[in-house]
């Protein structure tokens, strides 16, 4: 692990039990996240993309330890602390680290408590820090408010008085107030209109340049991810199927799933047709068995080997990793 990595995730896994209703009994489990490895360099943005159910949110929440990982290590090397494994820490040991890792949520409506003033919402992450003076809390709140481009008068108002874009700014200010090194943004712009989305994307980029924050950016929109991220990992059913620096990922994807995602994304150009790929819904049985490539049933390049042997993530060209048995020449944008 190099010095420049802020976060190093190794072999992270999480399973959820299927059908554990009161009467149905347990029926095996589904691996929502399956042996995932990745590193995030300090001051950079790492993007996780994938369909719903691919495990991207679960990964984000495990990094925050909101969800307990089953296996694996989440090594966090803060600027002024030793490397710690977030996955092994006890809840009491995590608390002092909370202000270093913060989160921006998707829904700017449900993520702000309607009974709290903006100042209280933004200042909340500071509460568990011991020995912080009240005047400093106030200063930090004002500073965070200015950073995200909100006016100081807004601090005494309640969330209902704000539009979606302004609420998202409040959510970002709350994430910044404790001076975090890592911000996990889970679909932070998906609920916003395009014009507001562009404002928030610009803000996130600007804040990174100013404060050197590292982002773990989780999204499904490939255009948004291309704009904001430096390195991207594509998730499919809990596994990273492709990871690389963004330019090569879009120009020459190496995994058929990445190709299909790029082809399916609608572009604002009439005449450019999007391709849709056959989609089969995996049954519970398929979800719980793990032999073969997870993408087998949907892949248009599949061969015999794919059904019985699971490909491992390997470096196909320098810097570009894909979990595919073949060196395919696929179509990018």
């Amino acid at each position: 692990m190099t010095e420049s990595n802020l976060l190093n995730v190794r072999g992270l896994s999480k399973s959820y039990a299927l059908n554990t209703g009161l009467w149905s009994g347990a029926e095996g489990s589904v691996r929502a996240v399956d042996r995932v490895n990745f590193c995030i360099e300090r001051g950079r943005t790492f993007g996780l993309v994938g369909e719903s159910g691919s495990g991207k949110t679960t990964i984000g929440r495990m990094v925050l330890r909101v969800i307990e990982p089953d296996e694996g290590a989440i090594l966090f090397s803060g600027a002024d602390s030793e490397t710690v494994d977030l996955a092994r820490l006890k809840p009491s040991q995590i608390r002092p680290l909370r202000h270093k890792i913060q989160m921006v949520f998707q829904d700017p409506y449900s993520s702000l408590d309607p009974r709290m003033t903006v100042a209280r919402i933004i200042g909340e992450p500071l509460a568990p820090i011991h020995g912080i003076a009240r005047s400093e809390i106030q200063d930090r709140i004002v500073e965070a408010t200015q950073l995200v481009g909100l006016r100081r008068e807004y601090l005494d108002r309640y969330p209902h008085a704000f539009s979606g874009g302004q609420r998202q700014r409040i959510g970002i200010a709350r994430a910044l107030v404790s001076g975090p090194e890592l911000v996990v943004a889970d679909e932070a712009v998906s609920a916003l209109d395009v014009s507001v989305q562009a404002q928030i994307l610009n803000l996130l980029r600007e804040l990174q340049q100013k404060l050197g924050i590292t982002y773990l950016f989780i999204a499904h929109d490939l255009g948004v991810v291309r704009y904001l991220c430096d390195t991207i990992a594509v998730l499919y059913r809990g596994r990273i199927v492709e990871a690389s620096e963004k330019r090569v990922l879009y120009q020459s994807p190496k995994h058929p799933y990445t190709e299909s995602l790029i082809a399916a994304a609608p572009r604002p150009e009439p005449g450019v047709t999007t391709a849709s790929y056959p989609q089969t819904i995996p049954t519970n049985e398929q979800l719980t068995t793990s032999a073969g490539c997870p993408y087998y049933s949907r892949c248009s390049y599949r061969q015999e080997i794919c059904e019985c042997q699971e490909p491992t993530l390997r470096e196909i060209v320098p810097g570009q990793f894909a979990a595919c048995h073949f060196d395919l020449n696929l179509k990018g944008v």
Partner: protein
Amino acid sequence: MPDPVVDIQDLTVSFKTRRGHVRVVNGLTLALERGRILGVVGESGSGKSVMSRCLLRIEAPGKIVSGRVTYFKTPEQGLHLERMDSTCSAIRRVRWKEIAMIFQEPMSSFGPQHTIGFQIAEAMRLHGLDCGNRAVVDELMAVGMPRPEEVACQYPHQLSGGMRQRAMIAMALSCRPKVLVADEPTSALDVSTEAQILKLISAKQLSLGMSVLFISHNLGVIAHIADDVAVMYMGEVVERSSVKALFDGPKHPYTRALLQSIPRIDRECSGPLVVLGGSPPSPFVLPSGCRFHPRCPQRIPGVCDREPPAIELFQDGSEVRCHLWEGRG
């Protein structure tokens, strides 16, 4: 020769709120041409959903204050939907049989307590069609539903989002409507599922000869599916043209800003995105003059903030509501 199947003239829809009445659709004029797909784009709060709901008269708690919504079954035979009571039998004959609708969230548009097959059959039975099991399975098969016999016996919660949206389309098309209103039908879906649903809607539009009013905030989706596009801002249409003309040469500054603010999948962008300042103003206080002027980068002081712009018609059939284009059509 224009042949509209739905013609909306000067429509105003008002909602009563605690802060007073608010006009969400405000003097909107729009025509849906027969056999075409009209895309409607706009930010949240621009009134696009409310406008579309007026076609089925399910705009409540909103109220049509003025204007006309006419449905032309044939060019000669116009039906004034705005005059109908929202519960009368006349509008019920229009709903589903003439004009059908699909919604963004297919989970909430199906009842949870009946099977998919039962709910499709119900729509068909109410309009006097054969609603036997075979007919229902045929409808599901027609929208490319995998394992249609099985799905007909399943409940909505047992299907994935994409399958539910397919079932919703099967239900909407079961009575062979002339007009399909699709309100953000793919916004809750993943891209690959979205591409399939879009393909299905285009294919059905062609094979059944329907007209489609397709509402979306996603310009990529609109570029892909629509023949014509209308851009809405604060309850009115600010620009309307063919999809090619709109994306190649957007006229209204608002349309231009919308197009520029999309982060592109096919382009590297190292600088900041071009951003439209501010957010849509509150509908309670409409700006004077052009409704867009407080955010417009090209506003003409003394003109745009005083006079509401008139519609300027161009040779290629496009229309724009902007002072910058006055006299240039």
